[in-house]
């Protein structure tokens, strides 16, 4: 397994460096002078702007700045300072990350806890009334924009029923509506994916073999079909987790939760490109870690992949 972990890390590290390089390069070519932005609104003399440029190190060649930026991120975990208020972006991100992480983690938990059993049930009872109802509802949820769902939830549970708060992040109850709004669409899609994966496995030959052994239906489904269906579903969960991390961005704006997403949207609107680049790279890092963990779990769950990376002294036997 160690070999597999190393191999995955070797792929991940250059990808992450490339992410840093590309983001910095893209933002560098955005129209608008960062020095002017950093000075704030109002009229500034050329000398003032030039001084600011030097203070920000913008007078140096592009490649030098790029190298420094990427080096700072990877060696010192330093994302630089905000152009607008000069705050340290790293600390801003660290301060906000727990909120974003909470939304994403609660969302994926809700998704798996509801979507997995529902997907299995609908696959086992394919074409029953329950399955049809689930297909219809999940299809509809899948098409609902999360910000609209969020607004409807606020309308019903905060404004009409007054059960739950509609903005802020003071306690866990503040995360209930954001979690539901963020996961509803993904939950619907996930349920359908579980159903499809499970259906495919249920109709496979080895499930028939299990049945022909005399196993009760329950053991056939949970003992034989499910472990196989779960392997591809693991990857799906990882992908969903990642997209819920991205989706948290919108949710944070709707519910005024001071997370990374809100920070990102604000910095884009304020043209604070340092903060924006930092936020995006930070999200990419988190996403990469999630995908890495998913892949490792996948390899652990699937004996076929596990065997490929088993310690090399025990050679995989191909023939008997």
């Amino acid at each position, binding site marked *: 397994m160690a070999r597999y972990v190393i191999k995955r890390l070797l792929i991940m590290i250059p990808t992450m460096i490339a*992410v840093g390089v590309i983001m910095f390069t*893209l933002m560098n070519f955005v129209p608008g002078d960062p020095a002017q932005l950093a000075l704030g609104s109002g009229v500034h003399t050329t000398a003032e702007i030039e001084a600011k440029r030097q203070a920000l190190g913008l007078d140096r060649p592009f490649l030098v700045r790029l190298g420094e930026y990427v080096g700072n991120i990877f060696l010192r975990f330093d994302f630089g300072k905000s152009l607008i208020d000069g705050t340290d972006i790293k600390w801003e991100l660290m301060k906000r990350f727990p909120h974003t992480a909470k939304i994403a983690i609660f969302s994926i938990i809700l998704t798996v806890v509801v979507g997995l059993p529902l997907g299995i049930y609908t696959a086992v009872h394919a074409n029953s009334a329950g399955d049809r109802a689930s297909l219809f509802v999940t299809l509809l949820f899948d098409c609902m*924009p999360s910000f609209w769902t969020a*607004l*409807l939830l606020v309308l019903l549970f905060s404004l009409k029923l007054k059960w739950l708060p509609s903005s802020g992040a003071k306690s866990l109850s503040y995360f209930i509506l954001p979690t539901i709004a963020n996961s509803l669409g993904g939950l619907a899609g996930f349920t359908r994916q579980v159903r499809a994966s499970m259906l495919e496995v249920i109709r496979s030959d080895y499930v028939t073999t299990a049945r022909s052994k005399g196993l009760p239906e329950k053991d056939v489904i949970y003992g034989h079909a499910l472990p196989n269906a779960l392997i591809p579903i693991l990857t799906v969960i990882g992908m969903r987790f990642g*997209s819920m991390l*991205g989706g948290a961005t919108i949710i944070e704006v709707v519910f005024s939760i001071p997370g990374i997403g809100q920070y990102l*949207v604000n910095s884009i*609107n304020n043209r604070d490109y340092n903060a924006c680049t930092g936020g995006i790279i930070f999200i990419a890092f988190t996403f*990469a870690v999630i995908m890495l963990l998913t892949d490792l779990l996948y390899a652990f769950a699937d004996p076929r992949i596990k065997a490929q990376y088993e310690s090399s002294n025990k050679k995989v036997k191909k023939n008997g």
Partner: protein
Amino acid sequence: MADHTHNKKGGGHHHRGHGKKGKRHHIDPGIKPGSAKYIWASISHNKGAIFGMVFLTAMIVLSLLSPVICRYNYAATDFEMMKSWPSIKHLFGTDDLGRDILSRVLYGARYTLIIGILSTLLSAVLGILLGACAGYFGGVIDAALMRFLDIFQAFPSLVLAMAFCAVFGTGIDKCIYALGITGIPGFARLMRANILRIRNTEYIEAATTINCPTWKIILQHIIPNAVSPVIVEIAMGISRNGLASSSLSFLGLGVQEPRPEWGAMLASTRNYIRDYPYMVIIPGIFIVFTVLSFNLLGDAFRDALDPNFRD
């Protein structure tokens, strides 16, 4: 499961494993699966697809005609009619500036449709080219292209689209570029997997052994077999990008006020949700049905194009 399959007195009770299959009983058995006729027959018997086609056609026609058929201009403010609930005069009510929501919603359909369709076509064209190159040439080109696309897939897609919006700025065209570029890796991977799958099939091998020229193999064997998943993916992509474009506009990064893009409309009226919920509910319903229509069409295409690929 299998325990219930048996029906003793034969023929009395019909055991149907699948409703979808049940639906296909309407298609004339003489029509061959895979033919254009079959695809059309299958789609035109699919209720979801019919709903999608009717809804989308209606939206396109109404959006184009909205300046003519609507009593109010979508941008015309009326300070005497601000925030008025739906009535005979204003079927969907008016917003905070007294603008007629019906006119705005109908006119605004064009943004979601145009951005959704054009951005997906942009991803499809570039993605298919890259994917086909990677799949066809293989080796170093393949590895390099795939590693490059890995970089784009290192972001949640919405965050990547936001990054491009930050770079390009706001506006319809910028939004199309942002979503279009974000979607490239998906199409490239799909196409590459397609080409690899088809290249390794025995009928390609057979065509090669009888000295069929390469261009003919590509034209007659690879493309027709690769095209079905791409069509399905395009329909799904339009649905995804339509949703994403309204999300971006809602965040203020896509199409901006005073243009009546649905997401932007929601962003500008969300503060009135407590007292005037219709302002938020109505544009949202249109987003849902538009996205749903493309989704249903994609599903119908998938069923029609590949009879094996059904659950």
